[in-house]
């Protein structure tokens, strides 16, 4: 993580949305991203993990330059894109491309594949000219996701932001697409910002993992340590709640009580304290800063006690 010049360095990134709550009422602020930092080296994969509303997709929107962050910096290949001019951002956009979750929605059904991308299936090494003239509805889900990946690669990006790229696919097709993504990374040296809620997929593809909860990073570090010894109570709960591919034979399902809090009205202090089995008084008043445990950064007041 102390790579001298990573491809992408995100520091203390924040993005707040102002939402109307109705006529004559004050607008509310959603802190969709609230101080997130990480590095991503060329040719490596960072997985962003978390449940709905944790800010995964907001993060993707900042990194892909779809939106301007409110605070913090995003340094891509030496350029701070958070504070860059529109012209610079436009010039840098080809470096970052995106693959979306639903290949049924992300391809325009009225355009031919040929139009969607001019030299498409050649990149994957399969398909002939006849396939260029087809429309998206003539392809299966897995094939569409390949087309979407091919389209993302058209401009030779150095970073691909993949927002749940295999969540809509079946297990057998999911394996094909994950293999393709890993092959492409090896051949082209692309870095992936891989957003997923599926921990077993993340465990397979990622090098580094960033676990988010309600707009904040709760744990960040190498995959190996996070999966072997999750340090944050939320990461532990997430791993315990994930169904395991083995009959339980009497083992209790690890379940976390409570609901995800509303991002409009997050709990004070540590956002996780209401669901946390280790919470103490301090957790409800003070926002925890990052603590280092081994190679992992953890945002928890009690990190050193409980590990």
């Amino acid at each position: 993580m102390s790579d001298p010049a990573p491809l992408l360095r995100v520091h203390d990134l924040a993005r707040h949305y102002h939402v109307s709550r109705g006529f004559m009422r004050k607008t509310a602020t959603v802190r969709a991203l609230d101080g997130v930092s990480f590095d991503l080296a060329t040719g490596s994969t960072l997985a962003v993990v978390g449940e709905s509303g944790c800010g995964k997709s907001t993060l993707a929107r900042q990194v892909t330059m779809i939106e301007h962050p409110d605070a913090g910096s995003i340094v891509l290949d030496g350029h701070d894109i958070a504070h860059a001019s529109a012209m610079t951002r436009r010039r840098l956009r080809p470096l970052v491309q995106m693959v979306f979750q639903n290949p049924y929605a992300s391809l325009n059904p009225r355009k031919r594949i040929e139009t969607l991308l001019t030299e498409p299936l050649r990149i994957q090494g399969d398909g002939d000219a006849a396939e260029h003239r087809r429309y998206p509805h003539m392809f299966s889900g897995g094939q569409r996701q390949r087309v979407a990946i091919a389209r993302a690669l058209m401009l030779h990006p150095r970073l691909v932001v993949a927002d749940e790229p295999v969540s809509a696919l079946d297990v057998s097709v999911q394996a094909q697409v994950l293999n393709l993504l890993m092959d492409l990374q090896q051949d082209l040296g692309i870095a992936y910002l891989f957003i997923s809620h599926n921990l077993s997929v993340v465990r397979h593809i990622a090098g580094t993992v960033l676990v988010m909860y309600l707009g904040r990073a709760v744990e960040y570090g190498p995959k190996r340590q996070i999966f072997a010894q999750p340090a944050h109570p939320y990461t532990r709960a997430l791993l315990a709640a994930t169904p395991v591919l083995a009959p339980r034979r009497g083992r209790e399902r690890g379940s976390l009580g409570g609901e995800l809090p509303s991002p409009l009205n997050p709990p004070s202090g540590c956002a996780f304290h209401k669901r946390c089995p280790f919470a103490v008084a301090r957790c409800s008043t003070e926002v925890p800063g990052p603590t280092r445990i081994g190679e992992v950064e953890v945002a928890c007041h009690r990190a050193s006690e409980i590990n």
Partner: protein
Amino acid sequence: MPLVEVEDLCVEFGPTSAPAIAVDHVSFALDEGEIVGLVGESGSGKSVTALALLGLIEFPGRVDAKRMTFAGHDLLHLSGAERRRLIGKDLAMIFQDPIASLDPCYTVGYQITEALAEHGSEAERRDGGARRLRAIELLEQVEIPDAAARLRAFPHQLSGGMAQRVMIATAIACNPRLLIADEPTTALDVTIQAQVLTLLERLAHERNMTLLLITHDLAVVAETAQRVLVMYAGQHVETGPVPDIFDAPRHPYTQALLAALPEHNLDRERLRAIPGHVPGAYDRPPACLLAPRCPYAVARCSAEAPAMHGPPGRASRCHFPLDDAGRPTHGWSAAERVAAT
């Protein structure tokens, strides 16, 4: 006697001359109080099987079966009135997207009491106050905090997990003997999924209710079900108790599906993907449906359709069912193998 018995269920859509086959001669039985997982990929006919069981396949869909019974009732030849007395009372179903399954225009309380007004006890059918009390009790059973206040909530005011709990409360309102849960946790976050699965398990156990859990997630089935039915392209390809299916699958499709999961490739760079894709309505292979994708396929597999065979409760639809070590048996020889396309 099993609670549900289905024999040779077929569901077709489209023209009779060239039908799209959704469910192809599926047979199974469900016992009272058991949790059975129905797994398969998209288009394998899981949901259509469940809908056919409830009589919800509408014209021009065609349902045919040798036998389809529920607690002695013949589901194939029910009159409309008989079906309405049964469905929603003894058979209930919950769906994947709870927010979409609830009516946005009515309160949670109204939607729960609606079923009680039709199928509830005599007091409940007569008296709105009794229905309200029962609705509160149901919301408490599905662990919704502050149940009385929630009765006035509209679906858009609920989170996904809460809405699925409301759906479950509605489904169990009339003490069904069979609950069909079609991907009940697919739209939920993983910590909420764990809560909902624990809840479903507890309810099935407490009420001796049969739960047919339809899902594409093998891990959910491994953790929740006692028995599994595996479907592929409309056919039932394997059945067995949970530990056996996961430890020693008999059908090559089950084996390949398990091998494709990232959990089973921890020390590997590449995942063992299944080549090709699930056959659709117009490219169904003539004999064994898996033959074009199967690593063990021989000439016989594309000439002769295999039947379900094997010991009771552990059958599979393969000419050469796999042994405990995962190798094909019944005289299979590697020399005759036809390369998978």
